């Protein structure tokens, strides 16, 4: 088990190194000089050169890469070209919106998907199954920004239970902050929950046809007990894979929902930074997202081994 975790950890570090190189190169290749962009079209040559020197853009690529990486390790993400403020502060502010939003959405998605998927699997071929499958089809088909607007119309404008947008800072009370994240989280969770229920259902149906389920039934376990005691844990591997992928998606892919609800999240930050050629912000946020995705994959890998003893010995 320890060997397995160690090997996963090594592959995590290697992936991070590769990702940092790729991100840095892509941003380097991208056209547009930040200094000339910031100073506008009529800027003097020597003013631009001075600004480039100030931003450190005149140094060679290798040393810029290493100072970027070593800065990140120490928590220093550099200074934003446009806002002239430390990138780490900007990210810190935004991540306290994006991370809770992603977790919140994932929690809702899991809490809907597990019971729905298990129920559909036990009712396979019956009306209950058809209802769940129909509902999930619907959930996957609806674009989530449209669903978000419907939520706003019903719960914010008509019922006035929630505000239509904006984020209440955590200092003003955790419950209020959570409340302001509820509608966006539901909008994000709907398609994820639909996909996850379908995965849960098919994984469980497949597991229920295994020989050891028949053995358990022959031992005298009832249909429900067999699901809890024998089937669920075995069906969990594909479900964990999808949960891992969904979390990564929710961290980075919430940009449209952030726009709809006026949330100051990471997605919006990246979007703005790209339009303003604020490369240092783009690099840092993308690197951070990559870090989150790889870490989640690492956690999922470890979870596999916890669930399935056969994987523990594989090094």
């Amino acid at each position, binding site marked *: 088990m320890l*060997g397995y975790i160690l090997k996963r950890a090594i592959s995590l570090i290697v992936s991070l190194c590769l990702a940092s190189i790729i991100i840095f190169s892509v941003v380097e290749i991208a056209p547009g000089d930040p200094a000339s962009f910031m100073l506008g079209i009529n800027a003097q040559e020597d003013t631009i050169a001075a600004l480039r020197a100030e931003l450190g853009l005149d140094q060679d690529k290798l040393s810029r890469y290493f100072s970027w990486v070593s800065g990140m390790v120490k928590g220093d993400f550099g200074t934003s070209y446009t806002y002239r403020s430390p990138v780490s502060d900007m990210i810190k502010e935004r991540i306290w919106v994006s991370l809770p939003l992603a977790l919140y959405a994932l929690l809702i998605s899991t809490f809907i998907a597990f019971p729905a998927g298990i129920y559909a699997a036990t009712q396979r071929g019956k009306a209950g199954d058809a209802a769940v499958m129909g509902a999930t089809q619907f959930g996957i088909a609806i674009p989530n920004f449209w669903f978000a607007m419907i939520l706003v119309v019903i719960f914010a404008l008509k019922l006035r239970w929630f505000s239509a947008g904006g984020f209440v800072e955590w200092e003003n009370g955790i419950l209020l902050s959570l409340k302001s994240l509820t509608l966006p989280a539901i909008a994000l969770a709907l398609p994820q929950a639909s996909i996850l229920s379908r995965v849960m259902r098919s994984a469980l149906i497949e597991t229920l046809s295994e020989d*050891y389920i028949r*053995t*358990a039934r*022959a031992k005298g376990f*009832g249909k429900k007990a067999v699901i809890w005691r*024998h089937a669920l844990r075995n069906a969990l591997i594909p479900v964990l894979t999808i949960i891992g992928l969904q979390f990564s998606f929710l961290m980075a892919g919430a940009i449209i929902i952030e726009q709809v609800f006026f949330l100051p999240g990471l997605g919006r930050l990246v979007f703005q930074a790209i339009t303003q050629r604020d490369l240092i912000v783009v690099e840092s946020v993308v690197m951070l997202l990559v870090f989150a995705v790889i870490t989640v994959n690492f956690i999922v890998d470890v979870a596999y081994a916890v669930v399935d*003893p*056969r994987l523990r010995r594989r*090094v």
Partner: protein
Amino acid sequence: MSILSVENLSLKIGSESILNNISFKLGQGRILAITGESGSGKSMTALSIIQLQPKYAKLKGKIFFKDQDITEKDEFELCKIRGAKIGMIFQEPMTALNPVKTVGDQISETIVLHSEKNKKSADTETLNILERVGLSPATEVIKRYPHELSGGQRQRVVIGIAIALKPSIVIADEPTTALDVTTQAQILALLKRLVKEDNISLILITHDLAVVSDMADEIAIMQNGIIVEIDETQNLFRNMKHPYTRSLFAASGHSVDLPSAKRSADLLLTIQNVTCRYRLARTKIFSKSDYFTAVSNVSFDIKNGERVGLVGESGCGKSTLTRAILGLEPIYEGAINVEDQDISKATLNTRKNIQVVFQDPYGSFNPRHKVSTLIKEPFYLIKDALEVKSIESKIDNVLEDVGLSSADKNKYIHEFSGGQRQRIAIARALIIKPKLVIFDEAVSALDVTVRAQILDLIAQLAEEYGLSYLFISHDLAVIRSITDRCLVMKDGKIIEEGLTKKVLEQPQNAYTKTLIEAAPKLPSFQMEL
């Protein structure tokens, strides 16, 4: 008094009748064997007794356990009977246990479920059970996961689950079919001992008459969902009233008229000091990888016209060796030559000299191709392509040679039975007239009567095509009937080699002796056919 009495049991799935009016009684402490070929309804009978038949199956008739009709019980009452009063052992020990739970948990949960005991005292009892089924040290085994045990050990665990609560009846559905002969002998002996000790009534379901003959008190022969004959073992074998029983018995002890070989001195296949090995998973992250030597320093040759058998139990390296001969497996040391051509550097021209017939007649064909496409595939190995017309006539001929008709070439593979598919596999191997055919457990997945037919076919084709072949099998009876010379393999080495008759009648090696003794034998009653 009988403990179980099945009365006029019928089972239908859709419009298909699976069981048709079967009746039998099982006495206290007796062993009843139910025998028949695949599809005869043996397993469905077993599942019906514990009411775990598929839910869309329609069941009629009565099943009395003691004095109560099981078919009238609800799910709650049935759960109290299953596992506690009627234990069940299934065929495939590899998949019958939950891979994510320790074997100890899987035994003790049965005890906790049916008794007032807590987990701790159930664990103590589990230790006893593990000792009883011959898994020691029990304190070690109780913590193991199924994947850490061998097939035979897993089947012992399954038996442990079945007998944990000293049930009145144990139903064993093909308990040893997936196991090697020596393991099979041990498992059967264990089962026999346990049912005697606890006075359990046993229903033993198997396709193998030889297994049944020295275990069962009574035998029921099933065919197409009907019990055609049921009698005390001795009487049944002596009288054999029903023709199906006779044909089953004849097929089980079938001997083939293998035409005498036209051997020449030309070497067809030479294997010199061949070693094949695999890299094992590392046990620690920075340790060096260990290697598993699957085939170790093996040498033998096959001359033109020879029929050679290769016997061994699972894991002995025979599959690795087969793949190496086919050029599908890298050789670590040594050389394999087909007519002086190194197989690892073989060209199409050499490869066309070797063809293979695999074990699984269901998995070894592409289901989307017509039979004609499937069997003309080897022609790709021949450089100067033949005319379409002559290929077509060859397809017709070879199909007729293997006992099918030329009209079959336009069908798809799912339209054929297992035996017919194996005929098609043989046709595919023979169509380009190879010099050597490798039969890799080619009859192991077939029923006894079909197996007898295929063996006859191979013998007949050996004459017509002047075949040389290497026949790989774990079944000594098959090797005996179809080969001139045989090799016995164990732990990657050839441990005995000689004329088949001599090896099987006067084995020199101790392992060969155990192998021969462990093989179940038909009773030697004289039968008039």
